[in-house]
């Protein structure tokens, strides 16, 4: 993003960057950058915390009022930067099922109700429903795999099906109540659900596959830190 700031500023636009990795901003010297102390993936802070998001945005825009030349790099201080775990949080429904397809069926019903009440979902990049996405992955290496709809290569469909599975489970878990941290949500998904186990297994098979394209997507399925931890077990 610092490079994009250089390019756009050079074109005559005034830019201000919200920087997550301080060392990168220092090295690349964008015209204006506000370093924020949030986890990767959350440049404007916590979901649902409109006041915090507004504070970050105002602070980034305030750099535009400073005289140049750049680079202008400022730290954003926020006492609310690292939301703690919710000690009372549990996945607020029963997902008990004998196999991953049955689990996905239960999850999909919970997801439909929860996302319907909220009014939107971030699931949908693969074109599958959550249950169909799970079935596509569960049968991927079978002699008779689930047919791949037209319009996307099979291996790409697998990657996006996995994105949708994760989105459906994690979105539902957050919508069912409480204030779980990202770590709590991910621990729940990867450590306790049958879908998490399915994706871990798929990732290992992709990683060791003779299919180059499968090996390529294996870096985009399971967080690297967890993938290594799982392999060490």
């Amino acid at each position: 993003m610092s490079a994009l700031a250089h390019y756009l500023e050079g074109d005559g636009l005034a830019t201000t960057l919200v920087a997550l990795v301080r060392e990168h901003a220092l090295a690349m010297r964008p015209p204006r950058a506000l370093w924020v102390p949030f986890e990767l993936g959350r440049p404007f802070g916590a979901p649902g915390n409109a006041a915090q998001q507004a504070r970050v945005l105002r602070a980034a825009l305030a750099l535009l009022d400073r005289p140049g030349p750049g680079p202008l790099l400022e730290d954003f201080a926020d006492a609310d930067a690292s939301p703690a775990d919710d000690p009372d949080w549990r996945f607020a429904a029963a997902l008990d099922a004998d196999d991953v397809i049955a689990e996905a069926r239960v999850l999909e019903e919970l997801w439909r109700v929860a996302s319907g009440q909220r009014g939107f979902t971030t699931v949908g990049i693969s074109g599958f429903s959550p249950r169909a996405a799970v079935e596509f992955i569960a049968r991927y290496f079978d002699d008779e795999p689930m047919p791949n709809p037209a319009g996307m290569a099979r291996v790409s469909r697998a990657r996006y099906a996995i994105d949708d599975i994760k989105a459906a489970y994690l979105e539902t878990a957050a919508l069912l109540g409480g204030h779980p941290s990202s770590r709590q949500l991910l621990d729940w998904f990867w450590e306790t659900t049958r879908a998490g186990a399915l994706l871990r297994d798929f990732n290992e098979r992709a990683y060791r596959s003779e299919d180059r394209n499968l090996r390529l997507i294996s870096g985009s399925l399971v967080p690297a830190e967890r993938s290594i931890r799982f392999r060490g077990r």
Partner: protein
Amino acid sequence: MVLLNEVPEPERTVIAGLDLPRFEKTPFTPAAVPARRRVALLSSAGLILRGERPLLARDAGYRELPADTAEGDILCSHVSTNFDRTGFQQDLNVVLPRDRLRELAEAGDIGAAADTHYAFMGATDPAALADKAHELGGKLLALGVNTVVLAPV
């Protein structure tokens, strides 16, 4: 806290070892006064509109995200699994604070929010983005946008 020594391995080594482009000089465009700022947001989250082709790992293109797009019609196609997506799944403003920007415009703190926001694929080599970035820069100026807030993930 995202200091490199706080990022878990192996991602820490990946981030630390990224081949970052070096810039001899930092360009500087004086900003318009707040009341004359027309502000667009630019995300590196690989955001796309529902139904669009996802941005690929080395994609140098960008996507246009009209400001009035329904929240559920903006999806994340970023290739990396090594940043949090649970925030985005709950609230788009975590990565693209378009509601906060609109509120600033309504309060008169900026002149206007742009009608369209934009997203690149953050996993692409920054040097490969130059041509498309300049194309976008020209487009923004033609639309009367003079200010851009950039946000990585």
